[in-house]
């Protein structure tokens, strides 16, 4: 079996992979949901947009569910502390997501315009709110979250919901929302034509520019934030106990990983270059390349946030020693090994049959298709 320290690091990478997978896969259908009311002017146009993701949104959403499950299994303390601490933010994500399954399936079952437009806005909420909140959550993680543990490792969150909506966190929310919407736009361009294509192109361009500007802005801002650094206590390979370390706050500390390993600057560079290329490819009407570029951009952006905090996952602002790291918030050696094995076996299978599903459904969704499949299509 792989040694404990390596497995802890592998799981830090794997959770990153799941987050990136979620952003690329569920992100593109959420982006389509966000764009839906704006790029579809008529009912048939909206149905085109919805049916580009109709066969896939459910499978894509499992990236979110599995991400949650994997965090539960690999980082139980993060799952417990973050979800109970960010209680109302989590509920807002859940309740926004409620609109998606029913929105997709029920919308076109009744021909009433009010009914359909209500569900369209539901799909908008389901696409817009979760990425926004995830971005805000990352913005708060980078600033540290007010929580601590007692001796029995019971987490106590001492902040309020409204404090989460601070300027830096909102900026991160905009980055997240704009990059996901641009990415969804690239996908919608790939699967549509005519006026929807053109409107989406402009939307995706605008979102790409916003994401680029805000990501660079957040990058400068982050230098002013105190970073958390482990100064002593338990060894990284030790049995996990988050109370067994000392932590110092260092100005500009979130850049120290980049300073120690300059090669890592390629990750934020990938974010910037990806956003730029995504916009450029959308401009020259090459949606396939734009989609690949925005996928790489999100890999870079999520990677940047992760590397900045590494090994911290959830730093504590009120009791820094309680902060959760990739070394001390993890499951047992046995469980990490087991879950790694399960991921190695099933992830390639998932990618295989998901690709097959996209291949079967490939091609543009047209207005003619909607007219011909009035009863069958979403």
């Amino acid at each position, binding site marked *: 079996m792989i040694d404990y320290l390596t497995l802890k690091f592998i799981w830090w990478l794997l959770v990153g992979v799941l987050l990136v997978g979620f952003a690329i896969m569920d992100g593109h259908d959420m982006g389509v949901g966000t764009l839906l009311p704006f790029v579809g002017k008529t009912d048939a146009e909206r149905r085109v947009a919805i049916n580009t993701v109709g*066969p*896939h*949104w459910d*499978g894509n*959403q*499992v990236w979110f*569910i*599995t991400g*949650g*499950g994997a965090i*539960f*299994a690999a980082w*139980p*303390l993060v*799952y*417990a*502390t*973050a*979800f*109970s601490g960010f*209680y109302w933010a*989590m*509920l807002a994500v*859940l309740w926004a*997501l*409620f609109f*998606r*399954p*029913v929105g997709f*399936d*029920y919308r076109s*079952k*009744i021909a009433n315009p009010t009914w359909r437009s209500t569900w369209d806005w539901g799909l908008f909420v389901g696409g817009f709110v979760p990425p926004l909140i995830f971005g805000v959550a990352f913005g708060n993680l980078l600033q540290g979250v007010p929580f601590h543990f007692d*001796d*029995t*490792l*019971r*987490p*106590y969150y001492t902040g309020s919901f409204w404090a989460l909506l601070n300027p830096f966190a909102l900026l991160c929310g905009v980055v997240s929302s704009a990059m996901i919407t641009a990415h969804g736009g690239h996908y919608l361009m790939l699967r549509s034509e005519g006026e929807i294509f053109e409107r989406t192109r402009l939307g995706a361009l605008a979102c790409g520019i916003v994401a680029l500007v805000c990501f660079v802005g957040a990058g400068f801002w982050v230098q002013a934030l105190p970073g958390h650094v482990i100064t002593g206590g338990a060894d990284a390979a030790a*049995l*996990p*106990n988050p*109370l067994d370390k000392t932590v110092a706050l260092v100005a500009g500390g979130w850049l120290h990983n980049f300073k120690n390993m300059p090669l890592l600057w390629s990750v934020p560079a990938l974010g910037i270059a990806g956003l730029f290329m995504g916009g450029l490819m959308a401009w020259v009407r090459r949606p396939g390349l734009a989609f690949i570029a925005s996928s790489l951009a999100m890999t870079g952006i999520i990677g940047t946030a992760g590397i900045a905090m590494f090994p911290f996952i959830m730093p504590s602002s009120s009791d820094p020693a309680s902060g959760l790291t990739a070394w001390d918030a993890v499951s*047992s050696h*046995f*469980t990490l090994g*087991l*879950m790694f094995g*399960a*991921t190695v076996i*099933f*992830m390639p299978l998932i990618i295989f*049959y*998901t690709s097959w*599903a996209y291949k*079967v*459904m490939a091609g543009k969704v047209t207005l003619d298709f909607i007219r011909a499949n*009035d*009863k*069958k299509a979403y």
Partner: protein
Amino acid sequence: MLTEELVDLSRLQFAVTAMYHFLFVPLTLGMAFILVIMESCYVLTGRQVYKDMTQFWGKLFGINFALGVTTGITMEFQFGTNWAYYSHYVGDIFGAPLAIEGLMAFFLESTFIGLFFFGWDRLSKQKHLLVTFLMAFGSNLSALWILIANGWMQDPVGSEFSYVTMRMELTDFWAVVFNPTAQAKFVHTVSAGYVTASVFVLAISSWYILKGRDLEFAKRSFRIAAAFGFASACSVIVLGDESGYTVTESQQTKLAAMEGMWETHAAPAPFTLFALPDDQNQKNRYAVEIPWAMGIIGTRSLDKEIPGIKEIEAENRERIASGAKAVLALETLRNRQAGAAAKEAALPVFEAHKADLGFGLLLKQYVDDLNQATPELIARAAADTIPKVAPMFWAFRLMVALGFAFFALFALALYYSLKDNFTEKTWLLRWAVWFIPMPWIACELGWFVAEYGRQPWTIYGVLPTHLSVSSLTPANIYGSLAGFVGFYTLLLGVEMYLMVKFARKGPSSLGTGRYGDVPFAAQAATVSPGTPAKNHPSDF
């Protein structure tokens, strides 16, 4: 901090969201396989009507599935939001099956459901059938992993407490997977899902036959539901009995409560058919008993005793006293201020009483410093280990009675299907129509018996419910509970509206032109003389 109000509200919210979720799950589990059967008929015979059946029942399946997904997302995240300490304490074990469920099953089900609905024109017949099968397989595999997780809550095998990490840790994964409690629960639960879906199809088909419409479509659907339902009703009873047997082995308290067994009876114990359990005085009034039956069902022997409630409670009193020592030693071991000598002294005490740690934690509800635990408090905590008997006793009996009623319904439906005169048996058709809510009632009762019967534990014998909650304020939970109830009720209303609308429309909702607009006379030719033929399809 962890007030009784907070704990009760958290429990209520979990119960409400789980019971809502379970309104949709059983139908999904069973319907998926009924769709496989219908589509297999289509692939084997090439007859259009079977494809129409797959698509029409698939439409109703989809309406139900959407809410199953909606309410399911909540379940995945609620452990973290509302049961944070539980998530920390057992995440090492409990998180694994949930994550594997996502990787192995939920991806499969959710990816292929898209192709099920949208792949008809893009896949060959055989490939589409494969897609439908993988969807059904995925949804049932999901149930397996969820019930492995749930089975571990009832019977926590393959794991050990570590005082260093202050949590339960996995020691034997296969023991968790092949936990007899989990396996028995899985087969019983999916069979219940198959019964639910069969009653659903049988009832709606019966209604079409009673109305004299879409007969060829309805009769074929009826026969498939009757055959599948009969097999499922048999298995739900047999496997329910298996479930009961494993309960006897591993969850004696639950068994004693659902059977209202106050005293340990000399083997073989009688089965109490009817009684009024009296929690106050710990006895049954007006009991009607079947001699020997309980001993035979529960232990499959004539000489093994099944412990009664009073005996279990007395035993638990001792375990709580022993567990209190484990808790005190653990607190020393965890105390950052305690000296090395004190910790060294505490370790052997902890190891000696570790097996009763969970029982010691029960006292935390009443007193924070367990040095102050009086014999009265210990007796009170021991009394808490017995769930209320009357609701368990009655919920279980009602569920079993419904199980046998389904068996009777399907046996008759299958018998008259084989004789091919079921369209004349209007009493049977009406019975089926009126029975449509019953499987849902039975499923919810079953859930209630399993989960309420586990109280006062979230992990039986390991972690008390009152310690498992998140450190939130009751106001938070009032708010979220109101949100969930409001949201779910609204969505349930929409779902029921669509379900009824499309069930009434029938296969004409497919827009194929083959149903509804077919002249009534052409259909009536195939109607048996006894069938009432008063409604025209155009009425809908």
